[in-house]
């Protein structure tokens, strides 16, 4: 098929809209048509909002007629992962326990984008409460990878990544607690950014693990990631952990190239368990960065083997506390037949949560319980310190670090669903950035023998988003990949 408007990058569309070449309505219609055409197969959306989107687009078109300048996100269709609160629009977190929840407030990330004219096309499917790496933990059924419908899109922001890859929207927001933006971006052949912890407000991000949760972007170009981040980053008094920093112009240095940039290849990230196709593709991309003038060396994160154990104590511990609020009293599902309030709460949670969420609540409850707290949670917090120190040492020698985003390309639906430990290994390269609070981005760097996308991860020091964008943009331009899922040939 020929490219539709919804297949273009956001930055291109913004230029076309500003120049009067196309209207916001035409762009939004193109996106809505694509959703109609492919989403019954992909299942990226839990809630579609076509009426709201068209109304908003018409407003923007009328407003632009008056000659007022508009933001670069204005009129561009966007999807939000269904853990970001949207006022009056169903927000389920992929869980039965919030099946009919209508938030009485907006998440800050969305409120800011909306204020700039962003157009919401719908809420995307995800692993329940963002816990998972394959989207198979959604209470509403899995998302399918547009590159191969028999395979997972990754998770937990799998709906957002699949929707962007298939052109259902131009870009999307996801959330990243241990890799939930970067890993699905990698598996779907799109760009996924996890910003520095605290750079984007968590207000209205329904909490999973509060010290790790971040709002990130999923886009089809690095430039688009820079545009979206710039439009939503910055201090928010509603989130006490939000950083009080000026937001730089992320587009300013985008074209500066990588000449003289110190690139550290993470030695630990090319060992056992990494598919040869992934390893070779990432290595080849590192060579390209060297050809572009970067100085490449080997970096070490010596505590890498402790990241997964630390994460699977810290994240479930925080989750067990955060998810205590689902008690069938103030919002959400309530089980029938409880003999008293406490019994009602037991039943509500037993019926409302899925297996992975229960597993993590139990794990966290155990790790925080009397007699075990010091041995598990306390020790994990010390490991977190060691991982932060590893990064500090590495960033003394390097400006950015390179690794694969995920050890494998997209795996088959059902392949790892009964083996939690195998599933958790998907996030082995993405989790360290969450523990250390540093920013990281996944960019497509090739396809494997089966034609499935491979992602390369770049990591920078705290608030180093500009260097991430600059490096990722250089690589993206040099590779010049044309990434179009075969599914779209038949649309």
């Amino acid at each position, binding site marked *: 098929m020929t490219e539709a408007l919804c297949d273009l990058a956001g930055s291109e569309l913004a230029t076309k809209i500003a120049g009067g070449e196309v209207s916001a309505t035409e762009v939004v219609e193109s996106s809505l048509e694509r959703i109609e055409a492919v989403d019954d197969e992909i299942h990226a959306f839990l809630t579609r909002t076509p009426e709201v989107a068209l109304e908003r687009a018409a407003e923007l078109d009328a407003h632009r007629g008056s000659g007022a300048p508009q933001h670069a996100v204005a009129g561009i269709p966007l999807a939000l992962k269904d853990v970001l609160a949207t006022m009056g629009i169903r927000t389920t977190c992929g869980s039965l326990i919030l099946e*009919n929840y*209508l938030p*009485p407030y907006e998440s800050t990330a969305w409120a800011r984008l909306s204020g700039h004219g962003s157009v919401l096309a719908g809420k995307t499917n995800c692993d329940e409460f963002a816990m998972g790496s394959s989207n198979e933990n959604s209470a509403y059924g899995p998302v399918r990878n547009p590159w191969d419908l028999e395979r997972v899109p990754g998770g937990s922001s799998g709906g957002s990544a699949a929707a962007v890859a298939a052109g259902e929207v131009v870009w999307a927001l996801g959330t990243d607690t241990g890799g939930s933006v970067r890993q699905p971006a990698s598996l779907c052949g799109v760009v996924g950014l996890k910003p520095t*912890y*605290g750079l984007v407000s968590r207000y209205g991000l329904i909490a999973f693990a509060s*010290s790790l949760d971040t709002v990130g972007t999923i886009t089809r170009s690095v430039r688009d990631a820079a545009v979206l981040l710039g439009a939503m980053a910055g201090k928010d*008094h509603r989130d*006490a*952990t939000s*950083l009080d920093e000026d937001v730089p112009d992320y587009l300013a240095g985008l074209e500066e190239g990588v000449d003289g940039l110190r690139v550290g290849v993470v030695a630990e990230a090319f060992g056992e368990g990494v598919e040869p196709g992934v390893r070779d593709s990432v290595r080849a991309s590192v060579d390209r960065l060297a050809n572009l003038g970067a100085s490449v060396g080997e970096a070490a994160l010596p*505590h890498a083997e*402790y990241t997964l*154990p*630390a994460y*699977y104590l810290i994240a479930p511990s925080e989750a*067990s506390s955060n998810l*205590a609020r689902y008690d*069938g*009293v*103030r*919002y*959400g*599902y*309530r089980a029938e037949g409880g*003999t*008293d*309030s*406490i*019994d009602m709460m*037991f*039943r509500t*949670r*037993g019926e409302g*949560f899925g*297996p992975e969420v*229960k*597993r993590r*609540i*139990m*794990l966290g*409850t*155990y*790790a925080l*319980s009397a007699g075990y707290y010091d*041995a*598990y949670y306390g*020790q*994990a*917090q*010390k*490991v*977190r*310190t*060691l991982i*932060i120190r590893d990064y500090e040492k590495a960033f003394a020698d390097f400006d950015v670090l390179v690794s694969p985003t995920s050890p494998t390309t997209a795996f088959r639906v059902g392949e790892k669903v009964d083996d*939690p430990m195998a599933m*958790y290994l998907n996030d082995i390269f993405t989790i360290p950035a969450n*523990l*250390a*609070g540093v920013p990281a981005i996944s960019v497509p760097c090739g396809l494997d023998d089966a034609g499935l996308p491979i992602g390369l991860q770049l990591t920078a020091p705290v608030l180093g988003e500009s260097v991430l964008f600059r490096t990722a943009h250089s690589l993206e331009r040099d590779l010049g990949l044309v990434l179009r899922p075969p599914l779209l040939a038949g649309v």
Partner: protein
Amino acid sequence: MAVEIDIDHVARLARLALTDEEKAQLRSQLALILEHAAKVGEVAAEDVPPTAYAIPRANVYREDTPEPSIPQGEALANAPEREDGRFKVPRIVEADR
């Protein structure tokens, strides 16, 4: 190190009603995960301080200006049951269990 977990005790703390099948599965899965997670003890030495937040903040204040709070009707709108402007729950006194 094999980890023995009192699943009933942990489920009580978490207020989760679990079926026998779920308990059996969780008992073995959690033991496996915790055995792996216990590796943190290998390197977490006495002199390493714990980290709760990678980028710590302290004493975060905002201007003490009054803002409207959420109207009662909206705050109650998602409640499974409500009555006279309040959340309604089953009886509080515990039944014999």
